[in-house]
C-alpha cells in the first residue's frame, strides 16, 4: 500500500493546509544543471504475443533538457534465447527503434519459461541484459458500474458521468509472481505516469502476504483518469514481469512522484542492462523485459453494468 497511501497523505496535507487558510505553492523554476556524458537508455519488452517485437535505444541528456531524446542509430542489436536461437533487431526506419519482424504470422518470439539475452553493440561499447518469461494468471472478469466522475476523472473532453471498472484475477500460488497491468481503451494504451500499475503477487509492495489471493484494490481499478462511455471497448492486459523488473517500475514511479514535504533523496532506478566495460563513461539505464501476457476485452454495455462492486 506504499504508493497509494503516500499520495493520499499528500492530498490530506493539502486539505489540512487549505483548512488552515494556508496555501502551499509550486513555482516552475529554471535550474542550472551540470553537463553530463550521455548514458544509453534501453527500452524493450519481449512478449508472448504474436507480431513484431521492439527495442528502443536513445541517449540520455542533461537534466531538464527540452529537446526530444536522441536516438542511437547504427547499433547491432540481437536477442538470443536459452536454446541458442538468435533474433536480430533492425533499425528499419533509422530512428533508433530496433524491430524484430516475424517471417510469418504464426511465428511468436516469446515463449513462457524461456530466458532471453540481449546484446547491443554501439560505438565500441557492448551492453548485455538477461530476462526470463515468467508465468501469468488469466483474467477472470471485468465489471463496471455507472458513476459520476471524481475530481481526478474530470477534465476537458472527459465524460462527467460514465463507467468505472474493476478486473478480477487471482494471483498464482507461490510467493513472488510479479505483474504489470496495461489498460487499453478502444485499442489505445492508457499511458502516462498515473497508469504505471505493477503488482507483487496480489498487492503493490514486496511482502509474502499477497500470495494466491485476488489482485487487490486499487491495482484492479479501471478508469482512474477518465470514465468510460457506452460502447467503449475496454481491454486489460496482465503481463508477467520479473521481480527485478517490478523493482524497476516501482522505483520509476516513486521517482516521478517524489515531491513535497516528504520527498526522499533521489535514488537510482535499477537497470538490468550492463556495460561489459564498467570503466566506460557510457553506462546504461532502462530495462530489457520479458513478459507472458493474458488479456480480456469487454464492450461497455449498460445492461451488463453492476450496481456495486463486490467489495
Amino acid at each position: 500500500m506504499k504508493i497509494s497511501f503516500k499520495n493520499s497523505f499528500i492530498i490530506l496535507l493539502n486539505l489540512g493546509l487549505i483548512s488552515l487558510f494556508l496555501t502551499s505553492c509550486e513555482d516552475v523554476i529554471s535550474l542550472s544543471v551540470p553537463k553530463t556524458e550521455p548514458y544509453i537508455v534501453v527500452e524493450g519488452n519481449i512478449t508472448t504475443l504474436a507480431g513484431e517485437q521492439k527495442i528502443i535505444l536513445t541517449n540520455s541528456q542533461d537534466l531538464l533538457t527540452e529537446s526530444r531524446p536522441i536516438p542511437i542509430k547504427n547499433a547491432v542489436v540481437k536477442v538470443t534465447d536459452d536454446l541458442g536461437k538468435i533474433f536480430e533487431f533492425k533499425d528499419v526506419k533509422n530512428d533508433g527503434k530496433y524491430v524484430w519482424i516475424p517471417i510469418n504470422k504464426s511465428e511468436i518470439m516469446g515463449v513462457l519459461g524461456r530466458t532471453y539475452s540481449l546484446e547491443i553493440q554501439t560505438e565500441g561499447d557492448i551492453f548485455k541484459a538477461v530476462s526470463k518469461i515468467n508465468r501469468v494468471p488469466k483474467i477472470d472478469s471485468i465489471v463496471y458500474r455507472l458513476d459520476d466522475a471524481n475530481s481526478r476523472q474530470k477534465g476537458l473532453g472527459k465524460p462527467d458521468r460514465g463507467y468505472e471498472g474493476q478486473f478480477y484475477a487471482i494471483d498464482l500460488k507461490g510467493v513472488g509472481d510479479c505483474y504489470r497491468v496495461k489498460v487499453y481503451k478502444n485499442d489505445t494504451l492508457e499511458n502516462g505516469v498515473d497508469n504505471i500499475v505493477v503488482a507483487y503477487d496480489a498487492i503493490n509492495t514486496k511482502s509474502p502476504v499477497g500470495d494466491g489471493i485476488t489482485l487487490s484494490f486499487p491495482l484492479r481499478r479501471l478508469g482512474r483518469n477518465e470514465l468510460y462511455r457506452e460502447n467503449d471497448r475496454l481491454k486489460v492486459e496482465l503481463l508477467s514481469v520479473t521481480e527485478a523488473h517490478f523493482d524497476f517500475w516501482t522505483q520509476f514511479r516513486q521517482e516521478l512522484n517524489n515531491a513535497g514535504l516528504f520527498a526522499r533523496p533521489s535514488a537510482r532506478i535499477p537497470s538490468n542492462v550492463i556495460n561489459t566495460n564498467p570503466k566506460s563513461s557510457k553506462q546504461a539505464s532502462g530495462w530489457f523485459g520479458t513478459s507472458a501476457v493474458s488479456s480480456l476485452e469487454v464492450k461497455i454495455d449498460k445492461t451488463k453494468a453492476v450496481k456495486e462492486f463486490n467489495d
Partner: protein
Amino acid sequence: MSKLISKILFFLLIFPLVLFAQEEKLTLSGYIKDSKNGEGLIGASIYVKELKTGTSSNTYGFYSLTLPKGNYSVVITSVGYRKLTREIKLVVNNLNLNFEINQDGQELAEVIVKGKRDDENVSAIEMSVNKIDMKTIKKIPALLGEVDLIRAIQLLPGVSTVGEGATGFNVRGGAVDQNLVLMDEAPVYNSSHLFGFFSIFNPDAVKDVKLIKGGIPAQYGGRASSILDIRMKEGNAKNLEINGGIGLIFSRLSIEAPIIKDKASFIIAGRRSYADVLARPFLTGNSSGAQFNFYDVTAKVNYNINQNNSVFLSGYFGRDVFGNRFGFNWGNSTLSLRWNHVFSSKLFLNATAFYSDYDYLLDTDLKNIRPNNQFRWTSDIENTSIKPDFTYYISPNNTLTFGGQILTYGFSPGSANASSNGAKVTFGSPTKDATEYSAYVGNEIKVSPKISLQYGVRFSKYDYKSKEDIYYERRFVGISDAYPSGYDLDTKLNDKNKILQSFSNFEPRFNLKLETGISSSFKASYNRMTQYIHLMSNTAAATPLDVWTSSTNNIKPQLVDQVALGYFKNFGDNEYETSLEVYYKDFQNQIDYADRANLFLNPTFEKDLLFGKGRAYGLELYIKKNKGKLTGWVSYTLARTERKIEGLNNGDWFPNRYDRTHTVNVVAQYELTKKWSFGANFAYITGVPYSLSERQGYFENIAYGITTAGVRGNIRVPAYNRLDISATKKNKKALFGKGESEWVFSVYNLYNRRNPFSIYTQPKDDNTTNSVDAGSPQEVEKLVKNEAIQLSIIGSFIPSVTYNFKF
C-alpha cells in the same frame, strides 16, 4: 568490570562528602512560591547578605542552605517579582521556611514565571542553555496567532529545522530524534500538531521551558543532542483562575483552582482546532464528513501533604485526526506521578513514575463500509519508567545529585490488517521490547569565588529482546540493484525469553565556569550522550508515520561527544546579555538509508540500512536585551553538520539535510504603553541541501531522472527570509466586565515572500508537447517532459487575530 564500576560510583558519591565534612552548621530550607497563585518558583535566588553566599530554588521551588549558626538577613529575588528581605535566626534548630513573593505589579495579563537571576547567564555554571519565559513566548508574532513553544525555540541560536511545516527541530547539527522532549519528566515522541505547523504544548498550561544544547548534566540521558525540559503549571492554589483564547485555528480554555487552599490545586487545559467546523459548509459530495482537526488536553493535580511531602499527577493527551473514508490519526499521551520528599533539610527527593505513548493509525476505510477490501495499519511506541532523583545540599558551595532510572520500551513498529475480496491477511514488523537501566551521580562545587565545577557520570545499560521466534543478522553480499545497501539478512532462531543484545555505556559529563570579571565569565563543557532508540526517517521532513526502532543486534546505539566553549558577558547592569559559544560534536553509529529502502511494515528493514559517522561544529552569537521598553534578542549561528556513510556519496562527507550555514534571528518586543505593545521577528536562513538526478532519459515517452546510487546534497535550496509582526492591545476588562483580556493582531510573512522549502523535478503537465515538429517526416509521439519545481509551503502573508481572556 562491574566491581570497578561500583567502586568508581561509590568514590564519586563519597568524595564530595569527605571533602566538605565540616564543623557544626544548621540548614535553612523550604519552598519559594508565587504569592498570587502558589506556584513553586524555579531558579529563584536566595541570598545571605552577611555571608555573601546564596543558592537558587530547584525545578520544584525547593531550596536548601547550610550555614554556620547565626542571625542573618536573607534576600529572595526572582525576575519579575518584588525583592523580599527577611531576618532569620538560625541558632538552635534547622529552619524550615517557605517564602512567598509578589509579582512586580507592572504586568496585567500574564503570570510572570521567569526563573532567572539577573546575571544568571554569566554566573551560573551551565552553558549552552536557553530559557525563554512564557511571557516572552506569548509576545512573539506567531503563525496564525497561535503561541507556539517549539517555533519560539527555533529562534534561538543553534536550533533549526529542515523548513516550514517540518516536524521537530534540530539542535547543533543533531537529528530530530536526538532531542529529549520532556513534559513533566515524561518523554514526548512527537512534539507537533499538523506535521510541524503547531506544537502540542498548550501555552496556558506551561510554566517553564528550558533547552539544554550542551554541557548536559548527568541527571539527563537517553537522547544524543539536546534536552527540552517543559514544566507544567501546578494550578492556582489560592483562587479560581480561568484563561482562554479564541484564535483562527484553536480555541483554548484552561481552568485552575485550589482544591484545598494552599494545599491542593489542579489545572485542566484543553485546545481544539476548528478548521473542519469552519470548512464544513464548503465540503460536498465525497468530501462531506471529512475530518481534519487536532486537539489536546493537559491536566495536573498536586497535593502538599505536609512540609516534607508533595505529590503531583499530570497527564497529557493529544491527537491529530485527518481523513474522510481514508484517514490517519496520531498522537501522544503521557501520565506522570511525582513525589517530592524532603528527607532532611539537606536531602531532597523527586521520584517520578511515568507512562508515555505515541501511536498512529492509518485506515483506508475509517467508516468500515467495505470490510472485505480494506487496509488498516497501526504503530506504537510505549514507555513506562520509575526514576528517583536525589539532591543533597552539602553546603551552599557543594551540591550532590544522584539517582537512577528504569525505563521500559515497547516497540510495535507496524502491524497491518489487509483484506482483498474477502481474503484477510495480517503482516508487519514484529514487536520488540527493551529495558534501559541507568544510574548517575553529579557534583557541583564552587572551588573558589571565581571557579565552579560540575562533573558527573551516567552509566546506562540497555537490554533488547525480540518477541519473535527468529531474528536477523546482516551479511555483506556486495552492492547491486538487488541489494542497494550491499547487505542481505540471515535468519537465526531466537529464544524469546532471552536478551538478544545488550549494550552498556559510561557517559562522562563536565562543566567548568571561570569568572573573568564582575559580569563576565568563561565556560567550558564536555558531554557524552548515548541514545538507544532511532527514528527511521528517510524523507525531507520527518512524517508522523515514521517509526521508532530499538537498537538491536544489527543497530548500534548512537553516541555523541560534544565539546563546547563559551564567553559570557553582561553590560549595563545586566540590561544586555551576550554570549559567544563554539562547539564541536562527534556522532557515532548514525543511520542512513540505501536507495529504495522500505521502512514501513517491513520486518526485514535492517537490510536497507546504512551506517556511518557524523560531525557538527559551529559558532553561536547571542545578544539579548532584558530591560526597558524594547526587549528582545539577536542570534546568529554559523554551523555545519555532515555525515559520512559507507555507500552514499562515494563514501565522502556530505551535508545533513538540515545543514544550515547561516542563521540570523532578530526578535524584538516593544511596550509602547500599558495598553499597546508590539512584536516583530525576522529570520534569514541558508537553504538546505538537496539531492537531484544528474541525467534525464525517456522510457515509454516519460522523462525520468537518472541518478547515480547514493547521491546526496548536490544542490542547495535558495535562502529563506521572513518578517512577522504583531500588536497586542490589553483591555482592563474581559467578558462580563470581569478579569482581563487582550487582542493580538499579527501578520506572518509580512512581505509575502514565497520561501522555498525544496526543489525537485516532476512530469510536466503540458499539451504543447503534443505538437508535431515542423518538417519532421516521422510520426512524433507525445512526450511527458520534466520540469523543475520550487515548493513553498507557505505561499503568502498570513494575517490573524486572537482574543485572549483571563478571569
